[in-house]
């Protein structure tokens, strides 16, 4: 199963767990699995349009441009990080 690193400020929802494994063939499915296990985390990651614009998803070390549509493998490692913003 994909391995998800939980952002520090969301660990209140995971009982302090930093790294979890949840099923999902895409980031969207993986977040749905996270939500089943840790209710409330989906709202923190997503708004009505998808992944919140100030959050990036990093899959296997690379910022995903497909975001929720990003395909995952069994060995994928996923991080959610604050998006780089312009200071503009």
């Amino acid at each position, binding site marked *: 199963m994909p391995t998800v*690193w939980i*952002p*520090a*400020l*969301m*660990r209140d929802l995971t009982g302090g767990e*930093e790294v979890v494994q949840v099923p999902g063939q895409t980031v969207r499915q993986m977040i749905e699995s996270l939500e089943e296990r840790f209710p409330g985390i989906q*709202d*923190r*990651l997503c708004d009505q349009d998808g992944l*919140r*614009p*100030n*959050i990036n998803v*990093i899959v296997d*070390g*690379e*910022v*995903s*441009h497909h975001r929720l549509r990003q395909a995952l493998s069994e060995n994928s*490692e996923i*991080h*959610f*990080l*604050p*998006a*780089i*913003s*312009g*200071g*503009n």
Partner: protein
Amino acid sequence: MATGMHADEVQDQAVKPEMEYQVLGTRPIRPDGTDKVTGRALYGADIRLPGMLYGAVLRSPHAHARIIAMDTRRAQVFPGVRAVLTCDDLPEPERKIEGHGEGSVDVQYQSANVLARDKALYQGHAIAAVAATNPHIAKEALALIKVTYEIIPPVLDVRQAMQAEAPLLLENLHTDEMGRIDDHPSNIVSHVRHQRGDLQKGFQEAAVIVEREFTTSTVHQGYIEPQNATALYNPDGQLTIWCSTQGAFGVRDQVADILQIPVSKIKVIPMEIGGGFGGKIGVYLEPLAALLSLKSGHQPVKMTMSYDEVLASTGPTSASYIRVKIGANSEGRITAAEAYLAYAAGAFPGAPIWGGTNVIFGPYGIDNLLIDGYDVVVNKPKTAAYRAPGGTNAAFACETVLDEISEALGMDPLEFRLRNVAKEGDRRADGVPYGRIGFAETLEAARSHPHYAAPLPGSHRGRGVAAGFWTNYGGKSSATASVNPDGTISLVEGSVDIGGTRASIAMQLAETLGLSFTDIRPQVGDTDTVGYTEGTYGSRTTFATGWAAYELGISLRQKLIERAADLWGLDPDQVHYEKGVFTANEQRLTFKQLATKLHDSGSPIMASATVQPGREGPAIGVHIVDVEVDPETGKVQILRYTAIQDAGKAVHPSYVEGQIQGGVAQGVGWALNEEYIYDDQGHLLNASLLDYRLPTCLDLPMIDTLIVEVPNPGHPYGVRGVGEVPIVPPPAAIANAIHQALGVRMSTLPMSPARILEAIWAQNPSTP
């Protein structure tokens, strides 16, 4: 990801030992050099159009004030005035993040920064604009606009702004903690946290623990060319903008969002640019010039800022408060590290706290850490990106503390860093594993450099070192190329050329095709002539647009192989191409020979490429500096400076060296002199280059550079971005040198003569 290939796939076929490169690593003369040294290059202020009007901006004299009323009637009827603009002329866009990476903006805030709505949020905030038949009339008319303000107490200091009782700048702003939105309005925009391991256990294992506080001042990029924009809003609804920008597409998209018109109605023509360093990504004048053109009956309107306006009204980078606590064991291994960073965003959200939290412990492998970062609004100009945004502040704090720890351990400061380097597979503070980085190689190169071992005799002299880290950025780039019948290639790229990227991009196309650099004719396109390309920022252009050029080369090569095969009546698989020569069996055609046959053998040959590579690879720099401090005046003189940096592959070494030297020069200014000075009412007291003290050639020695090349596996030629990281280490390196010279630890930037004297006097109160 680039089209069709993954980084790991292209690596095998493209990254070669240095000796095999024909073009990369050479130092050709830049294609735009002649025009620039002869003064013929055209900048935004050179634009002259028939019937052109001149715009000027009325700016708030107050740092924080509600706009109660505005009367523009006298200005409107003033002879020569053709249009007057207020916020009533601007649509009110909804919240939306436009753009990517360092180029991203919140359109609603951007609009309110371009022209204030109900509140002026800093001295210099644009309030209204006028277009007139000449600039003098425009300025006179500004004085006829009557604005009634209700003055509100300003908040200028980042820590004061974070207090619950602080005056609120934006009443609808609530703190965002990774999706958890606080119920109460606040000046704190967002909170970022990186946390790994067991901090308490890590500090318990430490033999030495150092905790210090640091403050840094608001500083400006100091580009020489002020912002400018000329707009022509045609009666057919087509808008053309000529401006000085780091990214034409970013201007197009921001103007479209602010004015709420389709991007297809806007053409942005980027002129040559006299520096940007992050400060020319967001728009200021462009929407105003466009609306003034519309309101004046479709006459072109030109607007240029004075340098006073540049300093007071465009985006500097954040002042900051940083607290760092680091522990290390007796073997020199860091056992725990903790940081708190509060960055002042200026009047609207967007301080580069992401940069600060990434950089602060960036190049080190640390298992137990906690980093908290805060983006905070204050009554100063909205900050913009500035070369490794947020990184210099953070490195000043961390690298100073590391120096103090290495001293306490009795360990060489470079050796101490070497014992803590992050290696491939180690985890960054945010948990993501590092790819291949050249930190150890860069530290070793610094330790072996003659400068590090050179004697430094004399009193009040000291040598300091510091390292710097920067994540770099990839982003979207496009380019097109067409083969000319004389065997040259016309290359159109979407990246504005600030530091020599016409050359560095053309060189990668030449290398891919086995041609000479002079066979490539590069030019920068406007938004109607080339595909979408993000701005020249994030150290991304040679990396990403260079990758697009590589893709062009691959595509052109294949098309030309097919044409040669067609001419010879062969299958393309039978044609071989190497170093500009097509061969098959006994037949042979050079690139130029084949080019002459294109017109008579089929359709023209051209290619386009779009890429969005994601493995940009971080940058590392290690700096060594010698200083002499005058204990009577507090003046710090830089005696010698050496900057060592991993460039991945230095495509054009002279331009890599230039980027390093430029970054160091700006870092020295940040370290020793530059700061925005305000009174307690938020009035900027040094808004001119006479009083805002940029370094000059008299302040700087020759800055020596040493390029280390640890290829980035995420690029066909191993390229890493080089432009930003050289500004990261200088303040820390200089602070550490000052400590060696005087025995005092500096914790505030700039380390101006007054602050040096204060530190000396604090160390020895009987001195004065």
